C-alpha cells in the first residue's frame, strides 16, 4: 500500500533534506535540524496511539510533543546569544475531535504548545511559519500562529479558517453557498489564501510551480523567503505587531489606539 506523503511531510523533506532528526518522540511530530535551524511539521500517522488523531490532526500527543520540542530548543539555547530559528511547516487539517481528547484535556495540550512557541519567540528565537496546506483553527493556533512571520504558498489547497465549511454552515444556520457569498464581501470569512492575504497577517505569498511536488526552484524560493523572514524577525520587536498593517484590520489598530488612550 503506497503511503502518499502529506504536503507538510514533503516540504519538510525538501527544505531540510540533510537535516538530523531533532528529539524524535512520536511519528506525527517531525522535527529536523539543518544548518542551525529547526524545522517542525505535524504529519499524518495512521498508527497514532490516539485513533482520532491519525490523519494529521493536532491532538493530545501532538500538542504536548510540540511543547516538548520547542521548549527543549529554548532550554538548549538558554545561554547562547544566537537563538536557533524555528521553522513551522504548517499543514494541519484541524485539532483532533474526540471523546478522549476532550476528557483528557486537549485544550490544555494545545495550550502547552502555544506557550512553548510564544516563549521561544519572546526568548529571541526567530520563528517563521510556512503554510503549505491547511491551517485550521486550534491546530493553527498551536502550530504556526505564534510565529514572528507567516509565509504561505499561493495554492488553492492552502486553506485557513476557524472551522470546516460544513460545520460552519450548520452552526451559523446558513447554507455553504450563502457562506461563500458572504465570504466574497467579507474577506475574513473566506477560506482561500488570496483573501487571507488581504488581512495583513501574512509576510508573503509564494507562487510555486507545484505545491504538492515542489520543484528545485520552488524549494529554493521558499528557503530564500524563509531566510529573509528570519532575518526580519531578528531585526524586529518580538511581539506580533507586524500583523497590523492591512486596511482590513484597521479596526484592530483603532481599538489598540483608543484603549491605550483611555487607559
Amino acid at each position, binding site marked *: 500500500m503506497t503511503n502518499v506523503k502529506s504536503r507538510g511531510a514533503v516540504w519538510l523533506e525538501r527544505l531540510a533534506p540533510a537535516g538530523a532528526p531533532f528529539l524524535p*518522540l512520536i511519528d506525527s511530530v517531525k522535527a529536523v535540524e539543518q544548518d542551525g535551524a529547526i524545522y517542525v511539521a505535524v504529519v499524518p500517522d495512521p498508527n497514532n*496511539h*490516539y*485513533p482520532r488523531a491519525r490523519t494529521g490532526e493536532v491532538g*493530545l*500527543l501532538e500538542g*504536548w510533543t510540540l511543547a*516538548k520540542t520547542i*521548549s527543549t530548543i529554548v532550554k538548549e539555547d538558554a545561554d547562547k546569544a544566537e537563538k536557533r530559528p524555528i521553522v513551522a511547516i504548517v499543514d494541519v487539517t484541524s485539532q483532533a*475531535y*474526540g*471523546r478522549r*481528547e*476532550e*476528557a*483528557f*484535556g*486537549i*485544550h*490544555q495540550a*494545545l*495550550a*502547552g504548545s*502555544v*506557550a*512553548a512557541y*510564544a516563549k521561544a*519567540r*519572546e526568548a529571541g528565537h526567530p520563528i517563521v511559519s510556512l503554510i503549505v496546506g491547511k491551517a485550521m*483553527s*486550534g491546530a493553527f*493556533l*498551536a502550530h504556526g*500562529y*505564534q510565529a514572528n512571520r507567516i509565509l504561505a504558498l499561493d495554492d488553492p489547497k492552502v486553506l*485557513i*479558517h*476557524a*472551522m470546516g465549511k460544513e*460545520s460552519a454552515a*450548520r*452552526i*451559523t444556520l446558513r447554507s455553504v453557498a450563502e457562506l461563500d457569498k*458572504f465570504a466574497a464581501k*467579507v474577506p*475574513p*470569512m*473566506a477560506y482561500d489564501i488570496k483573501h*487571507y492575504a488581504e*488581512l495583513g*497577517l501574512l509576510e508573503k505569498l509564494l507562487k510555486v510551480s507545484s505545491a504538492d511536488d515542489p520543484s528545485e526552484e520552488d524549494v529554493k524560493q521558499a528557503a530564500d523567503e524563509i531566510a529573509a523572514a528570519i532575518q526580519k524577525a531578528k531585526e524586529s520587536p518580538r511581539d*506580533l505587531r507586524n500583523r497590523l498593517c492591512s486596511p482590513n*484590520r484597521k*479596526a*484592530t489598530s*483603532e*481599538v489598540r489606539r*483608543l*484603549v491605550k488612550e483611555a*487607559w
Partner: protein
Amino acid sequence: MHNKESFIELGARQRAKAILDSGSFREILGPFDGVESPWLEPQGIVPQSDDGMVIAKGTIQGKDAVVVAIEGSFQGGSMGEVSGAKMATAIDLAAEDCLAGKPTIVVLCLETGGVRLQEANLGLASIADIHAAIVRAREVTPVIGVIAGTVGCFGGMSIAAALCSYLVVTKEARLGLNGPQVIEQEAGIREYNSKDKPFIWQMTGGEVRSRCGFVDKLVKDDVPEIKKAVEECAEKGVPEHFRTGCIDYFLETLSSYDTAEQAQPGTAEKLYEGGFKHD
C-alpha cells in the same frame, strides 16, 4: 428561600462590576464610544455597542486591576475582530503597567464559544494575539480566568483559559476545545452525543475539570463566593509553575493510557490521579 446572588445571571458589565471593588469600576471603550464590529451589518447581523466585550479598570482589594468580560449572550460570546482586540490590548497594557512598576491584576471572564464565524480569520487572529498577551502577562501578574456558564469556554479561548495563571469555575461551567455538536458531526454520535447533557458535563464540566486538576477553584454560582475566589487567586500572585509546564507528565500519562479503551465518566479522574507534575 435562597438568598443567592447568581453570577451566571449577570451580564458581562455586571460581572465586571461584581468582581471589582465597589465604586471602582471604570469602563474603557464602552457603549458610548461607538466601536462596533465593521463586519456584522454587511451580513445583516445587528451589532452590539461594545461588540460583546467589556473592559473595566478598577481595584480588587485596593490593588489595581482590569477585568475583561465577554458578553456570552451576544453571538454566543464569540470572538470578533473588535472584541478580540479589546481583550488582547487590555492584557498587553496591564503587562506593560506591571513592567513599569504599576502592578495590575488581570481577570478574564470567559463566556465564549470561540471564534465568531462571521469574522472567522480575524477572530482567529485576535485569539492568537490574546494567547501571546497572556503568555507575556502571566510572567509579571496573575491572569485569573473565570468561567461561570451558561455558555462555558470553548474553541481557541479554551486554550486561552489553559494559559491563565488560575482558573475559577462553577459546576455549571464547561471548559473544552470543541463544541459538542462539532465533535458529534466529525466523530459520530457514539463518540460524542451532543444532546446528552449529563455526559457532556461529565466530560468537560467544572466539577470534573476540578477533580482532574485543570482548574484551581470550583465555586458555587454565587457572587460573593466568586469574588472571594478571584481575590484569593490574586493574593497568590504569580505562580511558580503553570500547567503548560507539565509537559513530561502529560506526555508520559497520555502515552501510557491504553487507547483501546474509550473514555468513560471517571476515566480522566483516574488517569490524572495524584495531580499534574511540573517538569
